[in-house]
Protein backbone atom coordinates (compact mmCIF):
# COMPACT_ATOMS: atom_id res chain seq x y z
CA UNK A 1 0.00 0.00 0.00
CA UNK A 2 1.61 3.27 -1.09
CA UNK A 3 1.67 6.51 0.83
CA UNK A 4 -0.52 8.08 -1.87
CA UNK A 5 -3.13 5.33 -1.61
CA UNK A 6 -3.34 5.70 2.17
CA UNK A 7 -3.66 9.49 1.82
CA UNK A 8 -6.39 9.09 -0.80
CA UNK A 9 -8.31 6.87 1.62
CA UNK A 10 -7.92 9.44 4.43
CA UNK A 11 -9.18 12.26 2.21
CA UNK A 12 -12.14 10.18 1.01
CA UNK A 13 -13.06 9.35 4.61
CA UNK A 14 -12.76 13.01 5.64
CA UNK A 15 -14.96 14.06 2.71
CA UNK A 16 -17.62 11.66 3.91
CA UNK A 17 -17.37 13.38 7.28
CA UNK A 18 -18.19 16.66 5.49
CA UNK A 19 -14.64 18.11 5.54
CA UNK A 20 -13.22 19.90 2.51
CA UNK A 21 -9.93 18.18 1.69
CA UNK A 22 -9.07 20.28 -1.38
CA UNK A 23 -6.55 22.36 0.57
CA UNK A 24 -5.09 19.53 2.63
CA UNK A 25 -1.70 17.97 1.92
CA UNK A 26 0.93 15.93 3.77
CA UNK A 27 1.86 18.93 5.95
CA UNK A 28 -1.72 19.63 7.13
CA UNK A 29 -2.22 19.06 10.84
CA UNK A 30 -5.55 17.36 11.64
CA UNK A 31 -6.34 19.40 14.76
CA UNK A 32 -7.08 23.09 15.45
CA UNK A 33 -3.63 24.11 14.19
CA UNK A 34 -4.58 22.91 10.70
CA UNK A 35 -7.70 21.30 9.26
CA UNK A 36 -9.53 21.65 12.60
CA UNK A 37 -11.12 18.23 12.33
CA UNK A 38 -13.17 17.91 15.49
CA UNK A 39 -12.59 15.16 18.03
CA UNK A 40 -15.46 12.84 17.11
CA UNK A 41 -14.60 13.11 13.42
CA UNK A 42 -11.04 12.09 14.27
CA UNK A 43 -12.37 9.20 16.33
CA UNK A 44 -14.45 8.08 13.35
CA UNK A 45 -11.46 8.51 11.01
CA UNK A 46 -9.41 6.26 13.29
CA UNK A 47 -12.11 3.58 13.23
CA UNK A 48 -12.31 3.73 9.43
CA UNK A 49 -8.53 3.45 9.07
CA UNK A 50 -8.47 0.51 11.48
CA UNK A 51 -11.26 -1.18 9.56
CA UNK A 52 -9.73 -0.54 6.14
CA UNK A 53 -6.12 -1.42 6.86
CA UNK A 54 -6.42 -3.85 9.76
CA UNK A 55 -4.19 -1.71 11.99
CA UNK A 56 -4.94 -0.84 15.60
CA UNK A 57 -4.54 2.48 17.39
CA UNK A 58 -4.55 2.40 21.17
CA UNK A 59 -6.57 5.08 22.99
CA UNK A 60 -3.57 7.33 23.61
CA UNK A 61 -2.53 7.21 19.97
CA UNK A 62 -6.04 8.10 18.87
CA UNK A 63 -5.97 11.08 21.22
CA UNK A 64 -2.66 12.20 19.69
CA UNK A 65 -4.03 12.21 16.15
CA UNK A 66 -5.07 15.89 16.37
CA UNK A 67 -1.38 16.83 16.63
CA UNK A 68 -0.33 14.66 13.67
CA UNK A 69 -0.03 15.75 10.07
CA UNK A 70 -1.66 13.87 7.22
CA UNK A 71 1.81 12.68 6.13
CA UNK A 72 2.67 11.43 9.62
CA UNK A 73 -0.54 9.41 9.84
CA UNK A 74 0.07 7.92 6.39
CA UNK A 75 3.61 6.94 7.47
CA UNK A 76 2.34 5.40 10.72
CA UNK A 77 -0.23 3.31 8.87
CA UNK A 78 2.33 2.24 6.22
CA UNK A 79 4.83 1.25 8.92
CA UNK A 80 2.26 -0.95 10.66
CA UNK A 81 1.22 -2.53 7.41
CA UNK A 82 4.79 -3.57 6.62
CA UNK A 83 5.16 -6.56 9.01
CA UNK A 84 1.71 -7.78 8.05
CA UNK A 85 2.66 -7.69 4.35
CA UNK A 86 5.89 -9.59 5.08
CA UNK A 87 4.00 -12.19 7.10
CA UNK A 88 1.67 -12.58 4.18
CA UNK A 89 4.54 -13.79 2.02
Amino acid at each position, binding site marked *: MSHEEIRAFLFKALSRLNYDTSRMDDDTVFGPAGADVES*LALAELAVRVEDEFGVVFDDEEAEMMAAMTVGELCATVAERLQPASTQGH
Partner: protein
Amino acid sequence: MSGAAALMSGTSVCVTGMGLVTSVGTTAAGVMDAMCEGRSGVAATPPDHPLTGSLEVGGFAPPIDPDSVLPRSETVVVDRYVVMVMQAAEDALADAGVVVGRDVDPFRTAVVISSTGGLSTLEAQVLAREARGRPGVSPYMLPGMLPNMGACRIAIKYGIRGYSSAIATACAAGAHSIGEGARLLRDGVADVVVCGCGEAPFFPTLVDTFRNARALAHGWKAEPGAASRPFDRRHNGMVLAEGAGVFVLERAAHADGRGAAGYADVVGWAATNDAHHPLMPDPEGEGAAQCMRLALADAGIGPREIGYVNAHGTSTKLGDQAEALAIRKAFGGYSPPVSATKAVTGHMLGASGMAEAAVTVLALRRGLLPPTHNLDDPDPACELDHVRKGPRRAEITHALSNSFGFGGHNVSVVFGRPSTRLARQV
Protein backbone atom coordinates in the same frame (compact mmCIF):
# COMPACT_ATOMS: atom_id res chain seq x y z
CA MET B 1 -45.53 30.54 42.55
CA SER B 2 -48.97 30.31 40.92
CA GLY B 3 -49.90 32.11 37.71
CA ALA B 4 -52.21 34.41 39.65
CA ALA B 5 -49.43 35.25 42.13
CA ALA B 6 -47.02 35.80 39.24
CA LEU B 7 -49.37 38.35 37.71
CA MET B 8 -49.69 40.17 41.04
CA SER B 9 -45.93 40.22 41.58
CA GLY B 10 -45.11 41.38 38.09
CA THR B 11 -43.49 38.13 36.97
CA SER B 12 -46.14 37.08 34.47
CA VAL B 13 -44.97 34.92 31.59
CA CYS B 14 -45.51 35.95 28.00
CA VAL B 15 -45.10 34.14 24.68
CA THR B 16 -43.01 36.45 22.51
CA GLY B 17 -41.97 34.08 19.71
CA MET B 18 -43.29 30.95 18.00
CA GLY B 19 -41.77 28.61 15.42
CA LEU B 20 -43.32 25.43 14.05
CA VAL B 21 -42.56 22.63 11.61
CA THR B 22 -45.70 20.67 10.69
CA SER B 23 -47.35 18.91 7.78
CA VAL B 24 -49.66 21.91 7.30
CA GLY B 25 -47.21 24.74 7.58
CA THR B 26 -44.34 26.29 9.44
CA THR B 27 -46.20 29.09 11.21
CA ALA B 28 -48.88 29.22 13.88
CA ALA B 29 -51.14 31.03 11.39
CA GLY B 30 -50.56 28.26 8.86
CA VAL B 31 -51.81 25.58 11.26
CA MET B 32 -54.72 27.77 12.41
CA ASP B 33 -55.73 28.49 8.82
CA ALA B 34 -55.54 24.79 7.89
CA MET B 35 -57.97 24.03 10.72
CA CYS B 36 -60.32 26.83 9.74
CA GLU B 37 -60.25 25.83 6.07
CA GLY B 38 -60.48 22.07 6.75
CA ARG B 39 -57.20 21.46 4.95
CA SER B 40 -55.42 18.31 6.15
CA GLY B 41 -51.67 17.73 5.98
CA VAL B 42 -52.14 13.97 6.24
CA ALA B 43 -51.06 12.17 3.07
CA ALA B 44 -50.60 8.63 1.81
CA THR B 45 -47.08 7.35 2.34
CA PRO B 46 -45.18 8.20 -0.87
CA PRO B 47 -44.37 5.19 -3.10
CA ASP B 48 -40.59 5.65 -2.72
CA HIS B 49 -40.72 6.03 1.07
CA PRO B 50 -39.01 3.36 3.26
CA LEU B 51 -42.30 2.98 5.13
CA THR B 52 -44.38 2.15 2.07
CA GLY B 53 -46.26 -1.01 2.87
CA SER B 54 -46.12 -0.54 6.63
CA LEU B 55 -47.50 2.99 7.09
CA GLU B 56 -50.78 3.77 5.34
CA VAL B 57 -50.93 7.53 5.92
CA GLY B 58 -48.91 10.10 7.84
CA GLY B 59 -48.34 13.77 8.52
CA PHE B 60 -45.12 14.41 6.59
CA ALA B 61 -43.37 17.70 7.34
CA PRO B 62 -41.35 19.52 4.68
CA PRO B 63 -37.76 18.37 4.12
CA ILE B 64 -35.10 20.48 5.84
CA ASP B 65 -31.44 20.35 4.82
CA PRO B 66 -29.46 19.63 8.02
CA ASP B 67 -26.64 21.83 6.71
CA SER B 68 -29.02 24.81 6.80
CA VAL B 69 -29.35 24.67 10.59
CA LEU B 70 -26.07 23.08 11.75
CA PRO B 71 -22.39 23.31 10.76
CA ARG B 72 -21.61 20.74 8.04
CA SER B 73 -19.12 18.93 10.25
CA GLU B 74 -21.95 18.22 12.72
CA THR B 75 -24.45 16.76 10.28
CA VAL B 76 -22.72 13.44 9.55
CA VAL B 77 -25.08 11.61 11.89
CA VAL B 78 -27.93 13.75 13.13
CA ASP B 79 -31.53 12.80 13.68
CA ARG B 80 -34.34 14.56 11.85
CA TYR B 81 -35.93 15.52 15.17
CA VAL B 82 -32.86 17.63 15.97
CA VAL B 83 -32.96 19.29 12.54
CA MET B 84 -36.66 20.12 12.77
CA VAL B 85 -36.42 21.53 16.28
CA MET B 86 -33.36 23.60 15.29
CA GLN B 87 -35.42 25.11 12.46
CA ALA B 88 -38.34 25.81 14.82
CA ALA B 89 -35.95 27.44 17.32
CA GLU B 90 -34.43 29.64 14.62
CA ASP B 91 -37.89 30.79 13.56
CA ALA B 92 -39.09 31.34 17.14
CA LEU B 93 -36.05 33.40 18.13
CA ALA B 94 -36.32 35.48 14.94
CA ASP B 95 -40.05 35.94 15.59
CA ALA B 96 -39.32 37.15 19.14
CA GLY B 97 -36.53 39.37 17.85
CA VAL B 98 -34.39 38.38 20.79
CA VAL B 99 -30.64 37.89 20.55
CA VAL B 100 -28.98 36.09 23.46
CA GLY B 101 -26.05 38.14 24.70
CA ARG B 102 -27.46 41.37 23.25
CA ASP B 103 -30.97 41.43 24.71
CA VAL B 104 -30.62 38.92 27.53
CA ASP B 105 -27.77 37.61 29.69
CA PRO B 106 -26.75 34.13 28.42
CA PHE B 107 -26.81 32.82 32.00
CA ARG B 108 -30.35 34.23 32.45
CA THR B 109 -31.54 32.37 29.36
CA ALA B 110 -32.84 28.82 29.67
CA VAL B 111 -33.52 26.09 27.13
CA VAL B 112 -36.04 23.29 27.68
CA ILE B 113 -36.29 21.20 24.52
CA SER B 114 -37.86 17.76 24.72
CA SER B 115 -38.17 14.73 22.49
CA THR B 116 -38.64 11.00 22.52
CA GLY B 117 -35.14 11.05 21.02
CA GLY B 118 -33.67 10.11 17.69
CA LEU B 119 -34.69 6.48 17.71
CA SER B 120 -34.53 6.20 13.92
CA THR B 121 -30.83 7.06 14.17
CA LEU B 122 -30.39 4.36 16.80
CA GLU B 123 -32.20 1.90 14.52
CA ALA B 124 -29.91 2.79 11.60
CA GLN B 125 -26.82 2.33 13.76
CA VAL B 126 -28.04 -1.04 15.05
CA LEU B 127 -28.52 -2.15 11.44
CA ALA B 128 -25.07 -0.81 10.47
CA ARG B 129 -23.51 -2.75 13.34
CA GLU B 130 -25.37 -5.86 12.29
CA ALA B 131 -23.99 -5.48 8.76
CA ARG B 132 -20.43 -4.32 9.45
CA GLY B 133 -19.69 -5.06 13.09
CA ARG B 134 -18.09 -2.50 15.42
CA PRO B 135 -16.64 -0.30 12.63
CA GLY B 136 -20.17 0.29 11.37
CA VAL B 137 -21.10 2.26 14.50
CA SER B 138 -20.43 5.98 14.38
CA PRO B 139 -19.00 7.88 17.35
CA TYR B 140 -21.52 10.56 16.32
CA MET B 141 -24.49 8.39 17.24
CA LEU B 142 -25.12 9.80 20.73
CA PRO B 143 -24.79 13.49 19.84
CA GLY B 144 -27.01 12.73 16.88
CA MET B 145 -29.88 11.09 18.72
CA LEU B 146 -30.03 11.58 22.50
CA PRO B 147 -33.30 13.22 23.60
CA ASN B 148 -31.43 16.17 25.16
CA MET B 149 -29.54 17.00 21.96
CA GLY B 150 -32.14 19.51 20.78
CA ALA B 151 -31.48 21.47 23.97
CA CYS B 152 -27.72 21.00 23.59
CA ARG B 153 -27.51 22.07 19.94
CA ILE B 154 -29.74 25.11 20.50
CA ALA B 155 -27.66 26.09 23.55
CA ILE B 156 -24.44 25.87 21.50
CA LYS B 157 -25.82 27.68 18.44
CA TYR B 158 -27.31 30.60 20.36
CA GLY B 159 -24.94 30.74 23.34
CA ILE B 160 -27.63 29.88 25.92
CA ARG B 161 -25.83 29.15 29.19
CA GLY B 162 -28.50 29.10 31.91
CA TYR B 163 -30.82 26.29 33.03
CA SER B 164 -31.28 23.53 30.45
CA SER B 165 -33.23 20.30 30.33
CA ALA B 166 -35.20 17.84 28.20
CA ILE B 167 -38.41 16.32 29.45
CA ALA B 168 -39.36 12.72 28.71
CA THR B 169 -43.15 12.59 29.10
CA ALA B 170 -43.91 11.24 25.62
CA CYS B 171 -46.81 13.06 23.97
CA ALA B 172 -47.12 15.49 26.88
CA ALA B 173 -43.50 16.63 26.54
CA GLY B 174 -44.10 19.75 24.43
CA ALA B 175 -46.73 21.15 26.76
CA HIS B 176 -44.59 20.07 29.69
CA SER B 177 -41.72 22.15 28.31
CA ILE B 178 -43.97 25.21 28.23
CA GLY B 179 -44.96 24.51 31.83
CA GLU B 180 -41.38 24.11 32.98
CA GLY B 181 -40.46 27.27 31.11
CA ALA B 182 -43.23 29.19 32.86
CA ARG B 183 -42.05 27.89 36.23
CA LEU B 184 -38.46 28.98 35.56
CA LEU B 185 -39.62 32.49 34.69
CA ARG B 186 -42.01 32.81 37.62
CA ASP B 187 -39.37 31.56 40.04
CA GLY B 188 -36.81 34.04 38.78
CA VAL B 189 -34.40 31.44 37.42
CA ALA B 190 -34.40 32.99 33.94
CA ASP B 191 -35.59 36.04 32.00
CA VAL B 192 -36.07 34.23 28.69
CA VAL B 193 -36.80 30.54 28.04
CA VAL B 194 -36.55 28.76 24.70
CA CYS B 195 -38.86 25.76 25.05
CA GLY B 196 -40.35 23.17 22.77
CA CYS B 197 -40.21 19.71 21.32
CA GLY B 198 -39.24 17.84 18.16
CA GLU B 199 -40.34 14.38 17.05
CA ALA B 200 -39.33 12.26 14.03
CA PRO B 201 -41.23 8.96 14.30
CA PHE B 202 -41.08 7.76 10.68
CA PHE B 203 -38.92 4.65 10.85
CA PRO B 204 -39.91 0.99 10.59
CA THR B 205 -39.47 -0.23 14.16
CA LEU B 206 -41.58 2.54 15.69
CA VAL B 207 -44.28 2.34 13.04
CA ASP B 208 -44.49 -1.42 13.52
CA THR B 209 -44.82 -1.18 17.30
CA PHE B 210 -47.67 1.32 16.89
CA ARG B 211 -49.27 -0.94 14.29
CA ASN B 212 -48.94 -4.03 16.45
CA ALA B 213 -50.44 -2.13 19.37
CA ARG B 214 -53.42 -1.42 17.03
CA ALA B 215 -52.97 2.29 17.68
CA LEU B 216 -52.87 3.61 14.10
CA ALA B 217 -55.80 4.76 11.97
CA HIS B 218 -56.54 2.21 9.25
CA GLY B 219 -58.63 1.95 6.13
CA TRP B 220 -57.98 5.54 4.97
CA LYS B 221 -55.44 4.99 2.19
CA ALA B 222 -57.82 6.27 -0.49
CA GLU B 223 -58.84 9.23 1.65
CA PRO B 224 -55.80 10.20 3.76
CA GLY B 225 -57.17 13.60 4.76
CA ALA B 226 -60.09 11.90 6.49
CA ALA B 227 -57.94 9.51 8.58
CA SER B 228 -57.49 11.70 11.65
CA ARG B 229 -60.97 12.42 12.99
CA PRO B 230 -60.95 13.18 16.73
CA PHE B 231 -64.28 12.68 18.50
CA ASP B 232 -65.98 11.45 15.32
CA ARG B 233 -67.99 8.24 15.36
CA ARG B 234 -65.61 6.71 12.79
CA HIS B 235 -62.36 7.49 14.67
CA ASN B 236 -60.25 4.34 14.59
CA GLY B 237 -56.73 5.33 15.56
CA MET B 238 -54.09 8.02 15.51
CA VAL B 239 -52.24 9.27 12.44
CA LEU B 240 -48.52 9.37 13.07
CA ALA B 241 -46.83 12.65 12.14
CA GLU B 242 -43.48 14.38 12.42
CA GLY B 243 -42.81 17.93 13.45
CA ALA B 244 -41.42 20.41 15.92
CA GLY B 245 -42.39 23.54 17.75
CA VAL B 246 -40.53 26.09 19.83
CA PHE B 247 -41.78 29.03 21.87
CA VAL B 248 -39.82 31.91 23.30
CA LEU B 249 -41.24 32.61 26.74
CA GLU B 250 -40.25 35.76 28.53
CA ARG B 251 -41.02 37.61 31.72
CA ALA B 252 -43.46 40.26 30.54
CA ALA B 253 -41.43 42.96 32.30
CA HIS B 254 -38.34 41.81 30.40
CA ALA B 255 -40.21 41.91 27.10
CA ASP B 256 -41.43 45.42 27.94
CA GLY B 257 -37.86 46.43 28.70
CA ARG B 258 -36.78 45.65 25.16
CA GLY B 259 -39.99 46.90 23.57
CA ALA B 260 -41.14 43.44 22.50
CA ALA B 261 -44.80 42.60 21.95
CA GLY B 262 -46.42 39.50 23.43
CA TYR B 263 -48.79 37.03 21.82
CA ALA B 264 -50.38 35.75 25.03
CA ASP B 265 -49.55 35.00 28.65
CA VAL B 266 -49.04 31.52 30.07
CA VAL B 267 -51.30 32.10 33.08
CA GLY B 268 -51.49 28.59 34.48
CA TRP B 269 -50.47 25.00 34.01
CA ALA B 270 -50.48 21.68 35.79
CA ALA B 271 -49.32 18.10 35.39
CA THR B 272 -50.77 14.90 36.84
CA ASN B 273 -50.49 11.15 36.22
CA ASP B 274 -53.28 8.64 35.61
CA ALA B 275 -51.43 5.92 37.57
CA HIS B 276 -53.47 3.47 35.53
CA HIS B 277 -51.63 1.84 32.59
CA PRO B 278 -48.36 2.46 30.68
CA LEU B 279 -50.11 3.12 27.36
CA MET B 280 -53.85 3.42 27.85
CA PRO B 281 -55.60 6.43 29.40
CA ASP B 282 -57.76 5.98 32.45
CA PRO B 283 -61.23 5.55 30.92
CA GLU B 284 -62.68 7.50 33.85
CA GLY B 285 -60.49 10.48 32.89
CA GLU B 286 -59.93 11.44 36.51
CA GLY B 287 -56.20 12.22 36.15
CA ALA B 288 -56.82 14.41 33.12
CA ALA B 289 -59.80 16.14 34.80
CA GLN B 290 -57.74 16.93 37.89
CA CYS B 291 -54.96 18.24 35.66
CA MET B 292 -57.35 20.76 34.08
CA ARG B 293 -58.76 21.73 37.51
CA LEU B 294 -55.25 22.34 38.85
CA ALA B 295 -54.29 24.39 35.80
CA LEU B 296 -57.35 26.58 36.32
CA ALA B 297 -56.47 26.94 40.01
CA ASP B 298 -52.90 27.86 39.06
CA ALA B 299 -54.30 30.56 36.78
CA GLY B 300 -56.66 31.73 39.53
CA ILE B 301 -59.73 31.46 37.31
CA GLY B 302 -62.96 29.48 37.32
CA PRO B 303 -64.15 27.00 34.66
CA ARG B 304 -66.54 29.49 33.06
CA GLU B 305 -63.65 31.83 32.25
CA ILE B 306 -62.24 29.31 29.77
CA GLY B 307 -63.66 30.19 26.36
CA TYR B 308 -61.96 27.44 24.37
CA VAL B 309 -60.27 24.08 24.94
CA ASN B 310 -57.82 22.70 22.40
CA ALA B 311 -58.17 19.00 23.11
CA HIS B 312 -55.43 16.39 22.96
CA GLY B 313 -57.90 14.59 20.63
CA THR B 314 -55.80 11.80 19.14
CA SER B 315 -58.60 10.18 17.11
CA THR B 316 -58.42 6.96 19.12
CA LYS B 317 -61.74 5.77 20.49
CA LEU B 318 -60.43 5.20 24.00
CA GLY B 319 -58.44 8.44 24.18
CA ASP B 320 -61.17 10.68 22.77
CA GLN B 321 -63.86 9.22 25.00
CA ALA B 322 -61.70 9.49 28.13
CA GLU B 323 -60.81 13.09 27.32
CA ALA B 324 -64.42 14.07 26.65
CA LEU B 325 -65.40 12.63 30.02
CA ALA B 326 -62.44 14.38 31.68
CA ILE B 327 -63.44 17.76 30.21
CA ARG B 328 -67.02 17.38 31.41
CA LYS B 329 -65.79 16.41 34.88
CA ALA B 330 -63.28 19.27 35.08
CA PHE B 331 -65.84 21.84 33.97
CA GLY B 332 -68.60 20.59 36.28
CA GLY B 333 -70.76 18.98 33.63
CA TYR B 334 -70.58 21.99 31.32
CA SER B 335 -68.45 21.96 28.17
CA PRO B 336 -66.57 24.95 26.86
CA PRO B 337 -66.11 25.03 23.06
CA VAL B 338 -63.66 22.27 22.12
CA SER B 339 -61.68 21.38 18.99
CA ALA B 340 -58.67 19.25 18.09
CA THR B 341 -55.72 20.21 15.89
CA LYS B 342 -54.52 16.64 15.21
CA ALA B 343 -57.33 16.30 12.66
CA VAL B 344 -55.18 18.34 10.25
CA THR B 345 -51.62 17.81 11.51
CA GLY B 346 -51.77 14.18 12.55
CA HIS B 347 -50.16 13.22 15.86
CA MET B 348 -46.68 14.71 16.18
CA LEU B 349 -46.26 13.03 19.57
CA GLY B 350 -44.68 15.51 22.03
CA ALA B 351 -44.38 18.19 19.35
CA SER B 352 -48.17 18.26 18.99
CA GLY B 353 -48.39 20.17 22.25
CA MET B 354 -46.46 23.04 20.68
CA ALA B 355 -48.62 23.33 17.54
CA GLU B 356 -51.74 23.05 19.68
CA ALA B 357 -50.53 25.68 22.12
CA ALA B 358 -49.85 27.95 19.13
CA VAL B 359 -53.38 27.41 17.81
CA THR B 360 -54.78 28.04 21.30
CA VAL B 361 -52.89 31.34 21.44
CA LEU B 362 -54.22 32.42 18.03
CA ALA B 363 -57.80 31.38 18.87
CA LEU B 364 -57.60 33.55 21.98
CA ARG B 365 -56.14 36.53 20.16
CA ARG B 366 -58.23 36.34 17.00
CA GLY B 367 -61.49 35.63 18.81
CA LEU B 368 -61.93 32.79 16.37
CA LEU B 369 -62.27 29.18 17.46
CA PRO B 370 -61.02 26.71 14.83
CA PRO B 371 -63.15 23.64 14.10
CA THR B 372 -62.22 19.96 14.32
CA HIS B 373 -61.77 18.78 10.74
CA ASN B 374 -63.57 15.50 9.85
CA LEU B 375 -65.91 15.74 12.83
CA ASP B 376 -68.93 14.82 10.71
CA ASP B 377 -70.83 12.71 13.19
CA PRO B 378 -69.73 13.10 16.82
CA ASP B 379 -69.25 9.91 18.82
CA PRO B 380 -72.14 9.94 21.33
CA ALA B 381 -69.61 8.96 24.00
CA CYS B 382 -67.72 12.19 23.29
CA GLU B 383 -70.45 14.64 24.15
CA LEU B 384 -68.93 18.12 24.21
CA ASP B 385 -69.58 21.57 22.75
CA HIS B 386 -67.66 20.68 19.59
CA VAL B 387 -66.56 23.42 17.22
CA ARG B 388 -67.13 21.75 13.87
CA LYS B 389 -68.08 22.42 10.26
CA GLY B 390 -66.44 25.86 10.40
CA PRO B 391 -64.78 28.34 12.76
CA ARG B 392 -66.81 30.00 15.47
CA ARG B 393 -66.44 33.67 16.38
CA ALA B 394 -66.05 34.20 20.15
CA GLU B 395 -64.28 36.89 22.14
CA ILE B 396 -62.59 34.99 24.94
CA THR B 397 -60.23 35.86 27.77
CA HIS B 398 -58.70 32.46 28.48
CA ALA B 399 -58.12 29.20 26.63
CA LEU B 400 -56.73 25.83 27.68
CA SER B 401 -54.64 23.27 25.77
CA ASN B 402 -54.49 19.61 26.81
CA SER B 403 -51.63 17.18 26.14
CA PHE B 404 -51.62 13.61 27.37
CA GLY B 405 -48.87 11.05 26.92
CA PHE B 406 -47.97 7.39 27.13
CA GLY B 407 -46.98 6.81 30.73
CA GLY B 408 -50.22 8.38 31.99
CA HIS B 409 -48.78 11.91 31.81
CA ASN B 410 -51.31 14.74 31.64
CA VAL B 411 -50.43 18.40 31.11
CA SER B 412 -52.82 21.33 30.74
CA VAL B 413 -51.70 24.86 29.92
CA VAL B 414 -53.91 27.95 30.28
CA PHE B 415 -53.29 31.02 28.15
CA GLY B 416 -54.61 34.53 28.72
CA ARG B 417 -54.31 37.86 26.96
CA PRO B 418 -50.81 39.33 26.91
CA SER B 419 -49.76 41.48 29.87
CA THR B 420 -46.98 43.14 27.90
CA ARG B 421 -47.47 46.82 27.02
CA LEU B 422 -47.48 45.87 23.34
CA ALA B 423 -49.55 43.03 21.87
CA ARG B 424 -48.52 41.14 18.75
CA GLN B 425 -50.83 41.46 15.78
CA VAL B 426 -52.12 38.02 14.82
